[in-house]
């Protein structure tokens, strides 16, 4: 089944009547997934948007419930919550993988997060297979295939003048069925067809044994080298498609208040600072180590997969070029001989 590129706008406009459609788009300062229509020009040529699509499921700020005193002066909590039907059109395979990681966090292990669950059930994803990865992309080293997105409802492949569509879930098939008038059954690939079946990233890392090595590297001097450079600005955590930490706070106005959650960052010292002043991660080293250990080691302990999907956003945006791919190289090269943390410099290869 194919969708002619000439008809994409007609299809999205029609779809946008029924649901909220989000597409990759260039903004004034940053690119992100933006609501289709209203002057938004889809930018399907963007490999990765600056901002990941995680706010579709986990908004940067999300109201959880209202509370306060009602007209009779009685306290109340109003937890009414609903979400709109959303189609995420043109999401890349790495970002689809990040949604799988978020599903693990918010939908498994003891508690199901109802806010996330509601949004997730109302989300339909059209993934766009990559044909030309960016220089900072390394998803294939993280176990992904840039031409596939198994968790997406529909997979789009660029076949020149059209996109080939493949439904990968019942939800995807139902949506394609509903709008079948926009599609044709042809399977033609013209001269402009782009290869998405054997795409290879130019940036490579070797993840073999990295997790097992990190299990023994909590006190390794390598973290000292990395920490020197880091400003703990938190940019990496905000642009990361899998960083899911959040704060819970409230805003109050007269007798009514709202409790909300918002993105937080393990790079900030107040993140773990307790009342009374004790902070288990007061120093910069322990926070930098926490972030990378979480991505490459702790998450795998808990959920059986890496929390880095190889999208390369943190490499692009870090103001001091602290590069996770270099860190992975360094971990691979590090010696595991028991060395005191305050001892000699580690086995860093100087890339930092």
């Amino acid at each position, binding site marked *: 089944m194919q969708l002619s590129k000439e008809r994409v706008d007609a299809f999205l406009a029609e779809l946008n009547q029924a649901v909220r459609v989000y597409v990759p788009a260039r903004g004034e300062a940053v690119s992100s997934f933006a609501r289709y229509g209203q002057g938004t020009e889809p930018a399907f040529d963007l490999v990765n948007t600056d901002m990941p699509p995680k706010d579709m499921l986990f908004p940067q700020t999300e109201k*959880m*419930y209202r*509370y*306060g005193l009602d007209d009779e002066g009685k*306290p*109340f*909590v109003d*937890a009414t919550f609903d979400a709109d039907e959303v189609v995420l059109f043109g999401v890349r395979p790495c970002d689809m993988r990040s949604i799988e990681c978020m599903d693990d*966090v*918010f*939908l*498994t*292990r*003891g*508690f*199901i*997060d*109802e*806010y996330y*669950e509601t949004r997730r059930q109302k989300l339909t994803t059209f993934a766009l297979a990559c044909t030309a990865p960016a220089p900072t992309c390394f998803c294939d080293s993280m176990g992904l295939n840039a031409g596939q997105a198994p968790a997406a409802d529909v997979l789009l492949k660029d076949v020149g003048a059209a996109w080939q569509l493949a439904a990968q879930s019942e939800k995807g098939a139902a949506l394609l069925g509903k709008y079948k008038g926009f599609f044709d059954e042809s399977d033609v690939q013209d001269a402009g067809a782009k290869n998405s079946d054997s795409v290879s990233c130019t940036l490579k890392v070797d993840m073999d044994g990295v997790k097992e090595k990190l299990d023994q590297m*909590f006190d390794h001097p390598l973290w000292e080298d990395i920490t020197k450079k880091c400003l703990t600005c938190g940019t990496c955590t905000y642009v990361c498609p899998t960083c*899911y*930490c*959040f*704060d*819970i*706070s*409230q805003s*109050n106005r007269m007798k009514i*208040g709202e409790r909300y*959650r918002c993105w*937080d960052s*393990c790079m900030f010292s107040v*993140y*773990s*600072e*307790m*009342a*009374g002043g*004790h902070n*288990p991660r007061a120093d910069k080293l*322990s926070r930098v180590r*926490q972030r990378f*250990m*979480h991505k490459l*080691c*702790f*998450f*795998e*302990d*808990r959920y059986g997969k890496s929390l880095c999907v190889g999208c390369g956003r943190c490499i692009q945006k870090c103001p001091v070029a602290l590069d996770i791919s270099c860190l992975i190289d360094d971990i691979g090269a590090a010696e595991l001989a028991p060395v005191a943390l305050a001892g000699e410099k580690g086995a860093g290869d100087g890339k930092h």
Partner: protein
Amino acid sequence: MANTKTANSKAANIEIEHGCAREATVRQGLVPQLCTVKSISHETSDVMSLRISTFDGRRPFDCKPGQTAMVSLLPFGECMFCVSAQGEDYLEFTIKRVGYVTEQLHALSVGDTVGLRGPFGNWFPYESLKGRDVLFVGGGIGLAPLRSLITYMLDNRASYGRIDLVYSGSKPSDLVYLQDLQEAWPQQPNMHVHLSVYRESSDWDGAVAYTAPFLEGLGISATGKVAVLCGGPSLFRTCSASLEKMGFALEDIITTLEMRMKCGVGKCGRCNVGGKYICLDGPVFSMAELKTLPGSVH
């Protein structure tokens, strides 16, 4: 030491439950249930105990000794506390005034509204402790979580052996649950309360010592005993070393941890130690388990 190991090997192993983090079955963990303050008792100048009931006078929810709950004070904020005791119609929280929200909690009056959500986390291994002698070691506000297990054991007295409580504070007026410590608990069958303060004081004729040397000097045998420990970082470090020196196996030293928490349900990220979340996999761990978690025992 060899005798200790032989003696302990005869007793059932202590099994700490962490399965509460396994199945995703519970929804609605983040929205508080509105409740009311049933009573307030002032333990020290900066510690008080709040008893909280539903509006219609019931216990807000059932929980096991050692479990935690988020006390949600609208419109100020939320804090995680261990449930220090529970009755037919209340849950009790013992709260030290140390920050913004606890300052506001200390300003509450009987009948005021608070939110509660929970129970969260795992619990003390009260089942596998049956038949065992238990040594509690605590300092200051660290007695609050221990109290949940002590009161459970006293309510089920026949199921447990000898109870020793070693408890310290900086000065006599810093000791919480003073009435229990000095009157109620020493009168309980086969329960022994050992108190010390860190500094001499005109209103104190008991022991003056830091907790670790005081503990070591009491001549308590580790044979057949399980230790349950809770206190600040310094007490935790020194007393866990003392317990090991006294011959306690790492599996038989149990503690409960504290970290900053926001969600309480293993999502918000900040309370991790390695791959474990203290709010969900913990707060109760054995020392043997902690030694496998990176950075937990410093």
